[in-house]
């Protein structure tokens, strides 16, 4: 039987080597999933002596629009997009690096995304709330360690309520574009620490008429926009196990993997050995051998039976432990619909990404508004179908803070693969917070909708409530009609009449979507009755109004 051993060994070694090579070739799993932070092309203009700052302009109202960097230092601000310097909007929602540059030369010290910048000026004109009562950008003493330091004229994203140190080089200054940006005054060469108390886009320009914009977003928005960390700490076979009980089911997985590999190698090895040894060749004849053997057949009936009994037993007992939640758990209500999630926390905070604390059991109470969905967080090894008009439950105990993937695993139609996707292309995530941060998230998030101006609130809800799955804001039709440029117009209805698109029509459509449906669009919109506060409906109306 030596040849058997030889072949078995060869096959096993080959298989292991093949997997090792495959795993190596695929390489570090983090490498290919990284939405590389946008590298802003350096302007081609080199006539200036100093280093040329590379701006990025974040335009709050045009999340999907191109971010254009134009490095025309000596040109007056005008629509001059530099060829080849256009980046797609895919990561407009991700943290773009704040490009820092030190301009040394005269009025060219600042550079601006001129094309987008000027457009941003007009968009912000309509988007900004008319005359805020008090400025939300405050100067603070630079005593704490600054979270972020900017040199030169800045464009980029910062956290709200973080202390940011601004250090402007000589010859560069910043003047707010409008009242909303009050507080952003900086003189050339000045160093100042600022705190942005409110989320939003703050526009400014330099005396050299270069435009810039700073987008302030809540700290948790940075977490949800992080790259998912499923495979950090995972291996070739499985993502990282972020649930306390996941270890147990993973042990089962690897045991069965080993068992299967053993049986496969044994069976395949025997087949190949027999085929080679007993292959037909001149002079070779079949040798007489028994056509059955009770002892052998009973053996290979009993052994699989015993293995199956063990597998069932351990699978079952592990499963019971894995699905039984502890009595005390943080409860989150989950509502799924085509095609978004809504996670409602104990204090009423609602979000389309799931935020949970680390080290505390989390229990999900889930239902669906329309068809079947399934909550699936691969790092937690948790999956549970979500059924309309019925509650189902899931729980997990996160062990490591991070941002993880959260998917829908039960087919639910058109955007099944993109549940909760934002216009910037980011899908729903599960954020596990460091100790204390979950509470901070709940209170900050609760305060957020109160401090937002109506247009920003509407825009936030547009993505958070999944309106963006069906309605565009750029005029193109998707599953439903676009929101752009329709407010105040007469829109045709399916019954042949038409109606004025005004506040009343929007409220009716939110609560009773099928009451006055538009021709050419399937009546698939779910009702949002009772799920939006008055202030939120007003926000959505304000946002639609702003989309001219």
């Amino acid at each position, binding site marked *: 039987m030596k040849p058997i051993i030889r072949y078995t060994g060869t096959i096993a070694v080959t298989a292991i080597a093949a997997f090792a090579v495959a795993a190596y070739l695929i390489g570090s799993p983090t490498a290919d999933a990284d939405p590389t932070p946008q590298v802003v092309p350096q302007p081609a203009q080199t006539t200036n002596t100093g280093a040329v700052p590379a701006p990025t302009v974040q335009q709050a109202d045009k999340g999907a629009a191109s971010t254009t960097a134009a490095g025309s230092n000596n040109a007056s601000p005008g629509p001059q997009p530099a060829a080849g310097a256009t980046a797609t909007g895919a990561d407009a929602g991700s943290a773009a690096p704040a490009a820092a540059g030190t301009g040394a030369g005269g009025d060219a010290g600042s550079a601006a995304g001129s094309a987008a910048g000027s457009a941003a000026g007009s968009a912000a004109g309509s988007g900004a709330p008319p005359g805020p009562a008090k400025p939300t950008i405050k100067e603070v003493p630079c005593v704490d360690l600054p979270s972020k330091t900017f040199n030169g004229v800045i464009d980029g994203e910062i956290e709200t309520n973080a202390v940011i140190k601004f250090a402007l080089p000589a010859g560069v200054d910043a003047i707010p574009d409008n009242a909303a940006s009050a507080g952003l005054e900086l003189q050339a060469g000045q160093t100042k620490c600022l705190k942005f108390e409110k989320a939003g886009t703050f526009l400014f320009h330099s005396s050299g008429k270069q435009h810039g914009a700073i987008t302030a977003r809540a700290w948790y928005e940075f977490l949800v926009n992080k790259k998912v960390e499923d495979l950090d700490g995972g291996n070739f076979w499985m993502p990282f196990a972020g649930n306390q009980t996941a270890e147990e089911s993973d042990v089962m*997985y690897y045991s069965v993997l080993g068992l299967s590999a053993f049986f496969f190698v044994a069976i395949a090895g025997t087949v190949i050995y*027999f085929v080679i040894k007993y292959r037909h060749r001149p002079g070779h004849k079949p040798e007489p051998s028994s056509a059955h053997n009770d002892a052998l*057949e009973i053996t290979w009936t009993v052994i*699989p039976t015993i293995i199956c009994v063990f597998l069932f037993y351990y*699978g079952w007992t592990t499963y019971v432990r894995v699905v039984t939640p502890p009595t005390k758990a943080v409860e989150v209500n989950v509502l799924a619909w085509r095609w978004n999630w809504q996670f409602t926390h104990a204090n009423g905070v609602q979000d389309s990404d799931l935020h949970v604390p680390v080290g505390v059991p989390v229990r999900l109470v889930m239902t669906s508004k329309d068809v079947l969905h399934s909550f699936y967080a691969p790092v937690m090894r948790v*999956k549970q179908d979500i059924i309309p008009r019925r509650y189902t439950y899931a729980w997990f105990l996160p062990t490591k803070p991070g941002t993880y993937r959260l998917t829908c695993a039960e087919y639910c139609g058109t955007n099944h693969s993109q549940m909760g996707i934002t216009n910037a292309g980011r899908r729903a995530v599960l954020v596990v917070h460091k100790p204390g941060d979950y509470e901070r998230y709940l209170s900050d998030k609760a305060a957020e909708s109160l401090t937002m101006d109506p247009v920003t609130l509407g825009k936030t809800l547009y993505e958070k409530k999944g309106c963006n799955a069906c309605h565009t804001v750029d005029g193109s039709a998707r599953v439903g009609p676009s929101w752009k440029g329709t407010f105040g117009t007469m829109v045709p209805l399916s019954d042949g009449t038409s109606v004025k698109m005004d506040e009343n029509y929007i409220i009716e459509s939110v609560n009773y979507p099928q009451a006055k449906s538009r021709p050419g669009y399937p009546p698939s919109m779910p009702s949002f009755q009772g799920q939006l506060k008055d202030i939120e409906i007003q926000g959505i109306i304000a946002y639609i109004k702003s989309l001219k």
Partner: protein
Amino acid sequence: MATSKQQIDYGYPDGPVNEPDFIHVEKGLKSWMLTLDHKRIGMMYLFGILGALIVGGAFALLVRTELWAPGKTIVSQDTYNQFFTLHGAVMVFLVIIPGIPAALGNIIMPIQLGAPDVAFPRLNLASFYLWCSGALLLVGAIPFGGLDTGWTLYTPYSLETKTPVLIAVSGVFLLGFSSIFTGLNFLVTIHKFRPQGMGWFQLPLNVWAIYSTAIMQVLATPVLGITVLLLAVERFAHIGIFDPTLGGDPVLFQHFFWFYSHPAVYIMIIPAMGVISELISTFSRKPIFGYRFIAYSSVSLALLSFLVWGHHMFVSGQSRLANMVFSALTFTVGIPSAIKVFNWVATLYKGDIRLKTPMLYALSFLLLFTIGGLTGLFLGILAVDVHLHDTYFVVAHFHYVMMGSTLVAFLGALHYWWPKFTGRMYPESLGKMCAIGVFFGFNLTFLPQFVMGARGMPRRYWDYDPQYQIFHQLSTIGAYILGISIFISVIYLFSSFWNGEKAPRNPWGASSLEWQAPTPPPLYNFEKPPVLHELYNYDDLVEVEEDRWERRAPTELEPAAAAAAAGGEDDHK
């Protein structure tokens, strides 16, 4: 056991056949459309099924092409959803379920019994026309907008979608009846049409498998019919069975659906197991090892398959008690499957293995079915299934069973019996190349999907994270190799009608009765009653030239061979 010992006639030598074969006995379209001959009906099934295979395969390649890159590659979400729905529906309902029983079973099974035809020839023709109508409706859903519910038709999505669910489920309903009629017909045929002296344990294992399949077809398919009927009524009359807004239960649909569709998995795989038993025994020149264990395991699989449907619903919200029971029962189906694999491997032992194309397919089946079965263990374990459910791991697992096993066995069977019912040999070297192409293409397609699934890639996704792209691309390349190999096979098989070598009566030296019939058989299969020999005993079959075997009396054999034959007498009698 009826034995040939006392008889002088050892079967038919190749010689002039007096009766015209079934292909030439009558001519004209009408003679085919109204035929009651099981072989002609089987041939028509075969053409239909191969056509559907190409349609389903084209959808598979479209799906794989779309998945080459994340986001949109060639089509939008809605179109992609229709692609995978039609791929699944066409492959399951039109190809794999009727593939071996209705097409090859129809052609071969009555001859294996030594019977002139099936018990109810008119019912047989009716079932073929039901299949045609069902196929037309199912494929006809495409011009009406294309079904997008997934082949599983889960409610409440299938109640709400604007795609032509009614047309498609009418098709499924008719296909169900086609399947029931075929099963009923075969049950009666196997009970009543065995020749004298052929007891249950002298039946070829292929017949045992078709018998087990027929039991399931008759008992399980009515549930599918009722389920799709309820779905149709729910859709236009809103009676509130499955619709949660009317007080119905969408999960009830899943119970009904899988009560049929799990046995359907065995409707697909058991005939394949029967075919493999024939192929492995014939090409190893060895009696099948553990005939009774294999026969019993077919029947026990058929019965157990009714009790495990709940393992499709471990995360659907059914009770934990139900999960426990279904998990335990699921493992019971693993045992007969394992027994079969071990028996097939043992059959190879001390054989004289001839690696003809059908045998290459049979060996592929052994390896692929082993992978399909072992990965089933992962999914039967409750704790592990929660993570793997509805991911690509499941997709890969059931493709290993349905395609890697059933379709590979179907191709093996097609090559094995092709000379018998067409009278022509297929090109052997091309056949081998395609068999190897199918094996490697298949593994390249589906092995990466196991890894993707374990890493958390959900199924039915049009868009995916970039981390999965390399696996999707390997899978797509494999799918093209697989598709091209199968396409070439279909082409050379058909062209062999015209330019294939003439096939002898018994090209493989097989022992079952169909090889005693002339090639191709006449209208009633045999010119005179066939002679029963001991099944799976190859001792007095002699290869007189390449691919041409004849039966000789032991005395006619060389002394050494005769001694070997005497020593090799089956010792289980």
